[in-house]
């Protein structure tokens, strides 16, 4: 067929497809998913995100287990979102000999009900300065969070200190001035939640963050540089929010939205590759059975039945447990098991096509087996093929998700199943971290739905039309 013929046929198909509403819905979703894959590098906050996913250091400054930002819209008590404070006032105090004294002042407007999870100071530079951090609350009270701590600036990462991890004792002391004995007794010195203490009203209940103290906070950082070559550059304060990101974070502080986006390409890859491989094998297998019939058919059917009887999930589990396979091996195994799906139907359609007069006519013209199978029978099955391919995708995605959920999948990739697996292990269900569980599950469902819609729409149109005289 000429190019123009192909184009005409495609247009004909497209016109038909446009009429099926849910097919368009499916197609729209597919386009969205594809766009997300294409623009992944832009959406995802940093490069090489796939590798970074497992790197704890990457996510250091993110809060742990925090909800998505938009949940604030629905709750009465507003949680603090993550914020990076970059503007500061730098003051250099008079030197004493070689020793230099610097002060940095940051301002933070706090208007929320639930305090951030952490406050982290980072800076680059050189040396081992002594750092003191104190915070002046809107009510005038000052808390010294960190006193004269020697901070080593690494050439790679700079220096970093987390208030939550290091100011427990100071926060406890501060809180004990105002908190009731009852409440205090329930709090361990080294395990206290520092941020609520800092940012709540100085009253009973301060350790629980009972009433937020709203207003402007000033954070003062003093640094002592003893050696001349030491210096401090670009200090930044990160408020690790109580809410973070579009989909929150998990217990490894990873932004789940990033994870979801990264998972799209794996889902599509797994789904499409598996279904492509298995449908191709299945259709050719079914057509050959139908075409040759007789003893060939009988033997092939028996082989088919053996494969059909193999339970996929147990097999995947066993293989995964023994060999710890990569995702490619998993796809191969799924492909080798899923092919049984279309065979029976393809065989019955094939048997019908086999009886058609035009097959006999082509035989009469001298056509050989190859031509009859691949030029006549398979093209007529193409519509069913595409429809099945689309419908097999959700199955493959779920299969991989199941394996990953059971902890047997390929941990080097970021798939939604993997995310669900970590959610399970990280106690998401028990702790009610719904944002960790729902989005991956929802994405599996939506992607499945996308392909199901497309598959059904195609099936509706491409189904061999009834003959008309």
């Amino acid at each position, binding site marked *: 067929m000429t190019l123009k013929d192909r184009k005409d046929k495609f247009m004909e198909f497209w016109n038909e497809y446009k009429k099926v509403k849910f097919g368009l819905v499916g197609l729209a979703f597919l386009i969205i998913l594809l766009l997300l894959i294409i623009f992944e590098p832009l959406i995802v906050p940093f490069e090489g995100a796939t590798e970074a996913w497992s790197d704890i250091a990457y996510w250091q400054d993110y809060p742990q287990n925090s909800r998505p930002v938009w949940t604030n819209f629905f709750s009465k008590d507003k949680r603090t979102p993550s914020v990076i404070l970059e503007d500061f006032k730098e003051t250099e105090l008079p030197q004493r000999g070689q020793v230099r004294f610097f002060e940095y002042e940051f301002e933070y407007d706090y208007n929320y009900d639930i305090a951030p999870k952490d406050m982290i100071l980072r800076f680059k530079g050189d040396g081992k300065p002594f750092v003191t951090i104190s915070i002046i609350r809107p009510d005038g009270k000052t808390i010294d969070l960190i006193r004269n701590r020697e901070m080593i600036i690494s050439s790679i990462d700079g220096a970093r200190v987390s208030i939550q991890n290091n100011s427990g004792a100071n926060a406890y002391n501060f809180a004990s001035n105002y908190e009731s004995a009852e409440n205090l007794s329930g709090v361990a010195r080294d395990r206290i939640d520092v941020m609520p203490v800092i940012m709540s009203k100085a009253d009973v209940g301060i350790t629980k963050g009972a009433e937020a103290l709203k207003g402007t906070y000033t954070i003062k950082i003093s640094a002592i540089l003893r050696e001349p070559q030491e210096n401090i550059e670009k200090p930044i304060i990160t408020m690790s929010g109580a809410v973070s990101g579009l989909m929150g974070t998990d217990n490894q502080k990873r932004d789940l939205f990033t994870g979801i986006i990264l998972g799209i390409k794996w889902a599509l890859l797994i789904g499409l590759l598996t279904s492509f491989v298995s449908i191709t094998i299945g259709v050719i297998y079914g057509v050959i059975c139908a075409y040759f019939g007789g003893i060939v058919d009988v033997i092939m059917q028996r082989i088919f039945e053996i494969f059909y009887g193999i339970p996929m999930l147990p097999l995947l589990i066993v293989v995964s447990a023994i060999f710890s396979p990569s995702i490619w091996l998993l796809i191969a195994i799924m492909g080798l098991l899923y092919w049984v799906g279309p065979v029976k139907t393809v065989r019955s359609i094939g048997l019908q096509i086999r009886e058609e007069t035009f097959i006999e*006519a082509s035989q009469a*013209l001298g056509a050989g087996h190859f031509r009859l199978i691949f030029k006549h029978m398979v093209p007529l099955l193409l519509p069913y093929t595409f429809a099945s391919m689309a419908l097999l995708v959700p199955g493959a995605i779920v299969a991989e998700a199941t394996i990953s959920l059971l902890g047997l999948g390929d941990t080097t990739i970021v798939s939604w199943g993997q995310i669900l697996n970590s959610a399970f292990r990280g106690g998401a269900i028990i702790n009610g971290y719904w944002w960790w569980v729902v989005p991956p599950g929802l994405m599996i469902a939506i992607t499945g739905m996308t392909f199901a819609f497309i598959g059904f729409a195609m099936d509706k149109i491409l189904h061999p039309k009834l*003959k008309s005289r």
Partner: protein
Amino acid sequence: MKENKQTGNLLEVKNLQKWFPVRKNLKEMLAGEQKHVKAVDGVTFELKRGEILGLVGESGCGKTTTGKLVMKLLNPTGGQMIFNGKDVTESTKEETKKYRRDVQMIFQDPYASMNPRFNIRDVLEEPLIIHKIGKTRVEREDKIKKALNEVKLTPVEDFMKRNPHMLSGGQRQRAATARSLILNPKLMVADEPVSMIDLSTRAEILYMMKEVQRDLGLTYLYITHDLSTARYFTDRIAVMYLGRIVEIGNADDVIDNSLHPYTKALISAVCEPIAGKVNLVKEVPIKGEIPSAQNIPKGCRFHPRCVYAKPECWEQKEPELIEYKDGHKVACRRYKEILKEK
């Protein structure tokens, strides 16, 4: 390998047999019997070069199976086929492919005989590709256009682009004929080529087929159940019953001077567009129903239904074709007496 060019026979069929084994039930399997559907049970005829031989009979008589045997779409279980002087009863794959260039078929259902997804161009190109005729696309297209012109499916460019469902019944049959012609065959087996076509177009297709025969020197084996059309189109007619030829001869002779009781019954059963027959009961000299091809009656297989049957018909061996005159043969022992009875 006798060269039969002198006799001018393109095809000779001798005692051709096609028996289909019937699936046995458990009892039969244990008893070790094998039943057969004897679709073609000893058929003998000659097809002269350039002639049109009609193979006529009711459903189940074996005419379509005979056609498929001639086409080598089926392999015979017995008998011999000689094409152009060469014994082609058994042949290798290559020989069969070569045979296909010489013997082609027109099918009954013009729509079903073409893949609905191909356009006419593809339909006609297929045989060329299979037999590697025409090295370039342009060469092949030339041949396609020539074939379409031969069957008067013009304008050619227009029809080449169309799919079968965009053509009328008559046009489809022309296209199918063009496809069969493109290989330049010597023999065309036509299986009910016009029965699915409207009356007003039938003659047009038959006329086209006759013209094609004249232009290309073809020979036809015309299979049909319609005696009237057979008379119009064919030169000679062979009447089949239950897998055998019971009468064969010139079309006019077989119809106007039928010898076999079965032929006579067929003739009397056919309706004619003549006034005054509305209130007349059709006298059809035949009894009972067609028996199953699994249980062929002993002796003359027509005897249970024959109104002239006498004990000799079922007691003696099955009658062979006897010549009456001028190539008019009949497979009936008593035909002379029956003629006298009239």
